[in-house]
């Protein structure tokens, strides 16, 4: 007869193995990038224009471009996402319309990033004639991160206890006053988490900006939202596949800056969420 405890031991060993197979490579990836990228990082690398066809100099315009794009995306996506989350958590009834909205959000989250690029190209660049510009790229990224913001904000709003609303309404406040003064303030940490996660996502994506904004090589800063711009993820793609003989240090350095930016935002989001959960009074 098979010994069930031995079977259990073997099974648990394999489960641990599976976990290690995910965790160890992730650790390795981060360590390799930090180890090889760190020597490239200095003030000149961060604050200088790229030179000699990106084989020397810094990545300043790419950093600035990414900051512009991410800011634009969040300016567009945060108000719409937040109001959509308020609708879903406070106003929607359990009916077909709500079901369809939720399905649409799931689908929006699942659309391949390169399809967002196509959409941005067709709508903003060609149809609205914004051209390849920061505006087109920001709007495309904004639509892409909408589901992240809606989902996390909605969770935050829904986690505010129902009794808070009842008390406010019973004191004579209107529905909107209740949302504005009672529900929203209590949901702010969660909304912040969602916003930061959205920022991180927008900062790291390449495919949606390929045809909507990204400039291959533009060693100056953009003057207006109708300008093209460089961006970190696209810059990393370009120097690692399109330009031959780029010093490995520059590639790793760029990867490190991008990774740090994105992981830092995610870490902040995780910490806010963790702190908030601990401190929650209800």
């Amino acid at each position: 007869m098979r010994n069930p405890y031995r079977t259990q031991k073997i099974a648990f060993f394999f489960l641990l193995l599976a976990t290690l197979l995910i965790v160890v490579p992730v650790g390795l990836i981060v360590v390799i990038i930090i180890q090889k990228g760190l020597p490239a990082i200095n003030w000149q690398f961060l604050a200088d224009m790229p030179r000699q066809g990106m084989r020397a100099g810094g990545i300043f315009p790419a950093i600035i471009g990414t900051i512009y794009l991410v800011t634009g995306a969040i300016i567009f996506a945060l108000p719409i996402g937040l109001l959509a989350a308020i609708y879903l958590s406070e106003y929607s009834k359990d009916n077909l319309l709500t079901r369809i909205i939720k399905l649409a959000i799931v689908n929006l989250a699942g659309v391949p990033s390169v399809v967002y690029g196509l959409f941005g190209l067709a709508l903003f660049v060609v149809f609205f004639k914004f051209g390849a510009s920061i505006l087109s790229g920001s709007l495309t990224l904004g639509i892409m991160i909408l589901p992240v913001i809606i989902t996390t904000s909605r969770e935050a709003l829904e986690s505010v206890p129902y009794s808070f609303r009842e008390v406010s309404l019973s004191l004579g406040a209107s529905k909107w006053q209740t949302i504005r003064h009672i529900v929203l303030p209590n949901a702010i940490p969660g909304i912040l988490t969602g916003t930061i996660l959205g920022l991180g996502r927008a900062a790291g994506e390449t495919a949606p900006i390929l045809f909507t904004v990204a400039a291959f090589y533009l060693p100056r800063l953009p003057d207006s939202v109708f300008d093209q711009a460089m961006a970190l993820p696209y810059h990393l793609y370009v120097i690692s596949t399109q330009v031959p003989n780029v010093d490995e240090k520059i590639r790793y350095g760029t990867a490190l800056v991008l990774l740090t930016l994105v992981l830092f935002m995610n870490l902040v989001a995780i910490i806010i969420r963790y702190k908030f959960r601990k401190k929650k009074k209800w």
Partner: protein
Amino acid sequence: MRKFKEFIVEKLILICGLASIFFVVLIFIFLLKEGLAVFNIVSPFKFLFGKSWYPISEPPQLGILPLILGSLLVTVGAAIISIPIGVGCAVYIAEIAPPRTKETLKAGIELLAAIPSVVLGFIGMVTLVPLVKTIFHLPTGLTALSGSIMLAFMAMPTIVSIAEDALYSVPKTYKEGALALGATHWQTIWRVMLPAASSGILAAVMLGIGRVIGETMAVMMITGNAAVMPNSILIPVRTLTATIAAEMGEAVVGSEHYFALFAIGIVLFIISFAINVTADLFLHKRQ
């Protein structure tokens, strides 16, 4: 006055609530608007099942079968790697890991999900690709296999987090009942927990696969981008997504090539739509 203001605000909220539907429809409409024109040149059947993709030859040959098979090959490879590992890790996190380890592991998985695909592609290029090349003695390490391995890492966070949720939401009484009857912890997991969470796990797998099919940058950087009919996992292939990303830059707006790339976009949109709707049905069944 206040009543009026609230009326406006509430209408605004309703409009934003409907925004997601609006955007999904808008994306589809614009893909159709730009993509359907290709079917004036080539029939839908020839487009989907044509074996050669030479968009800039004269006349252009616009058959995307090699691209579909490329995507399929890479996706199946990634699924074979990521499903057992992902579900195994989910079980470990949900059932076995002590609470502290559990929090750390969950944060680690979230970090993996956050690594931009272009960074994973870059790391794949400098570590995995040379490795595959030496192990299999190939002329190039840019193969479907390298792509599958790298993409498996992009599917895993999705699979782990949704499968873990599914396991977590199995009622405690099921587990307690099985343990009380004398089953070992593993027997409980295998015979009770996994079957009870099966529809959620299935949804997790589907969403993970959806992520793989739609993945663009990493795949473009490490699969070698040869638009030929794949006959082995050790040769360069080109996926649907990589084709769009690599060629749209050169396609002239309004050309046949441009229309064809949008038509590929329609195919991708429909695939991801189907996957997401089905996965959603599975997730709903559970509740």
